[in-house]
């Protein structure tokens, strides 16, 4: 099974679904699901065997090659499985929408492009697939027309800036080492001057920073998450934005030679410290901005940025101090975040599907009675996001904190911990306003979410709990990635870590919690019976308040907002919009030069030639 055959299947599948769509929608849905499940099967059985494929296409005299190793397998299996789940989810979600053929083929195309990135072994194919991914995302984000168009525009402008920066980096690498195969670059970079290495780091860092929405470069994310169709937002937030993390890991591999050989070059570790601090900043500020949002998807989008900060903090700090626990924590958090953010977006989409697109938190409420499965998914999703014990978020956060504290960086750890508390407040508001509280009259007869939506939610909820209780399963693969990147391997066991400065044992934790809750449940059950009452049989100081007379969840954290609101304006976004406005104004001024009559153009040319001659006479630059 050669890698380019896999890519062929993926891209071919995308076109096939488009053609089938022309024939019949049922055939197209079946084909889309079949292809995505086939990809999952392929990667599942490719677990242990690294594949090396050197030449698959002569392109301008450069040989493009693909490879599959521990790092790319880890990301690939995540991409295909989340892709398959979101395709299954969107079967019912997109049923009565228009342009569904375009939608399905684009979804498969985006998955294929991401696979391409992860499998590519040289920078040109990496760049091609990167561009393809960006453009497919742009087309999918602007699927709902009107407001989604400018969200897509904002996205594509920023990611184009990133890819242009990457292109410049690739060209400079090609010019200095005249090879584009990543392993060869890694070896030749070891001998390069530290200044050049720092330049490569910064250039690629900007490209991957924009994609991973690190703090100053994050402004495209909230609008594009909110406006994209929900199943695609799940994929976008789950894996697509984490291609930036894959890129960062790639850089650590490329400069891997530096770590093994001369130890960490001072400026390389300095760059990664800056990255770690940016990650810490990205954890704190967006999480508190998330509290202000009244739109469910905006709130989750801001958390997407915040959690991205954990990954960057883990990886940046791990590389800066050659600490494999932090690096493993960062990688593991990427997987965990992918799982529970997709789960949360799917539960929001399920509610949207039933309530006709409503996602304003102040007008929903009490849906736990009507949509229990979506509620359980949301509950497990937010406990993963917070990092409650027995969920996967907890283990990866624990790894990052332990590394930070033992290495003696309490302020970074403090930023991360405060991020957790900010998450708790804003995420409880999300759950409370959407599922708990009073059920409004108009949703009294809301039916449950359809089975095709409940299946992905159930699968992902069990994944959240499974990786929380048995973190050893993914950690074994991550351990292989760390050793491949040149870091020391961790003594990982099935249930956590043993070390003298503090251990983690999730099995004992699970046993303790299960036994104790059983005891508490027995005590609870033996006490006097309780009567289940209707929602309006509520204490209201003796008065009877009928159902829809008041709704109390508006302005959930009002006292805190009045204090924090001046500090939480999105200054970066305002700066960018001001910049864009200034550019538009100046371009307007320049446009006046083209008056349209030929005489002016001739005078411009003569003036230009005169100035050239003058310069030549005066300073003789040539």
């Amino acid at each position: 099974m050669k890698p380019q055959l896999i890519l062929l299947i993926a891209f071919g599948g995308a076109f096939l679904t488009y053609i089938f769509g022309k024939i019949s929608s049922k055939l197209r849905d079946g084909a889309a699901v079949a292809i995505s499940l086939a990809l999952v099967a392929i990667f599942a059985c490719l677990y242990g065997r690294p594949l090396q494929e050197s030449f698959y296409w002569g392109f301008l005299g450069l040989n493009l090659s693909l490879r599959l190793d521990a790092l790319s397998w880890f990301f690939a299996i995540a991409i295909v499985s989340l892709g398959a789940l979101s395709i299954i989810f969107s079967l019912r979600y997109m049923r009565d929408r228009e342009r569904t053929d375009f939608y399905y083929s684009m979804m498969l195309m985006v998955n294929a492009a991401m696979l391409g990135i992860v499998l590519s072994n040289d920078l040109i194919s990496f760049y091609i697939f990167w561009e393809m991914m960006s453009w497919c995302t742009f087309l999918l984000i602007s699927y709902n027309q009107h407001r989604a168009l400018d969200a897509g525009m904002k996205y594509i402008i920023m990611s184009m800036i990133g890819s242009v920066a990457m292109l410049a980096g690739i060209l400079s690498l090609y010019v200095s080492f005249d090879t584009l195969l990543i392993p060869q670059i890694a070896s030749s970079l070891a001998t390069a001057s530290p200044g050049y290495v720092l330049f490569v780091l910064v250039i690629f860092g900007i490209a991957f920073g924009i994609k991973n929405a690190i703090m100053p470069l994050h402004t495209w994310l909230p609008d594009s998450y909110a406006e994209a169709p929900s199943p695609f937002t799940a994929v976008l937030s789950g894996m697509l934005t984490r291609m930036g993390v894959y890129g960062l890991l790639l850089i650590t591999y490329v400069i891997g030679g530096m770590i093994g050989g001369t130890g960490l070059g001072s400026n390389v570790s300095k760059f990664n410290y800056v990255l770690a601090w940016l990650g810490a900043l990205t954890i704190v500020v967006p999480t508190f901005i998330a509290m202000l949002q009244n739109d469910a998807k905006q709130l989750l989008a801001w958390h997407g940025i915040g959690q991205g900060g954990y990954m960057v903090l883990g990886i940046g700090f791990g590389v800066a101090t050659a600490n494999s626990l932090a690096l493993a924590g960062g990688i593991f958090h990427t997987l965990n975040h992918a799982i529970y953010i997709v789960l949360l977006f799917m539960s929001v989409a399920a509610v949207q599907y039933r309530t006709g697109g409503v996602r304003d938190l102040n007008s929903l409420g009490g849906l736990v009675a009507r949509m229990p499965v979506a509620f359980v998914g949301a509950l497990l999703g937010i406990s993963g996001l917070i990092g409650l014990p027995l969920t996967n978020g907890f283990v990866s956060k624990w790894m990052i904190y332990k590394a930070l504290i033992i290495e003696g960086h309490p302020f970074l750890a403090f930023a991360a911990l405060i991020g957790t508390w900010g998450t708790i407040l804003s995420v409880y508001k999300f759950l409370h306003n959407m599922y708990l509280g009073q059920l409004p009259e108009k949703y009294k007869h809301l039916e449950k979410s359809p089975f095709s939506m409940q299946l992905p939610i159930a699968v992902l909820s069990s994944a959240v709990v499974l990786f929380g209780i048995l973190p050893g399963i993914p950690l074994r693969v991550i351990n292989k990635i760390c050793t491949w990147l040149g870091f020391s391997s961790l003594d990982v066991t099935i249930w956590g870590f043993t070390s003298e400065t503090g251990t983690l044992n999730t099995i004992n934790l699970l046993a303790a919690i299960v036994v104790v809750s059983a005891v508490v449940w027995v005590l609870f059950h033996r006490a006097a019976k309780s009567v289940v009452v209707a929602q309006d049989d509520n204490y209201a100081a003796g008065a009877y308040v009928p159902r829809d007379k008041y709704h109390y969840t508006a302005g959930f954290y009002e006292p805190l907002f009045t204090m924090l609101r001046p500090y939480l304006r999105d200054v970066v976004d305002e700066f960018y919009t001001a910049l864009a406005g200034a550019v538009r104004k100046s371009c307007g001024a320049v446009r006046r030069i083209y008056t349209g009559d030929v005489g002016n153009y001739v005078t411009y040319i003569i003036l230009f030639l005169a100035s050239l001659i003058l310069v030549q006479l005066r300073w003789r630059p040539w």
Partner: protein
Amino acid sequence: MDRNQIAKWFKEPSKMANKYSLHAIYFCTGCGIIEVPPVITARWDAERFGVIPVATPRQANLFLITGYVSVKTLKAIIRTYEQMYEPKYTVAFGSCPINGGMYWDSYNTIKHLDKYIPIDGWIAGCMPRPEAIFVAVTHLWTLIDKGMANGYERYKKYYRAYRRNQELALGKLEWPPLYPIGEHTEGGECD
């Protein structure tokens, strides 16, 4: 605590616990509310008897009705009483809830509160003094001991009659009945 007290604790803990931990909710009806603050504060400390004021009927098992009951207040009293859950006791202060007191011929007050919600203890007097309230609490203990403080069982047994009386006094009630009563059958016992 003498010997048989402890034995009684083990024989019927729920009765003893109900006696010595009466969480009271008092509805500020009529003039009696002036008596409650001195009762629960420093001078006549009700907490010695285990009686503490609580905020909501859900947490309470003692309902103090302090003073005359106007027709409008009766609606709130019934609502509060129905939001409390077994075992619950009610004590009415003063002569107005007994038979109307000095408002016996007023068109706007409820004469015999017992017709609308079951009352376990009455305290006579046109606003009883705090000592009278403590006597009432101790009497309530003996009632609970003998099992005679069964207002809530009476309410459940004759709920249809109580509901009919309430609707005679107040017209149609907005909230559904507490216990299932068939709309068609008239008077008599409910299961």
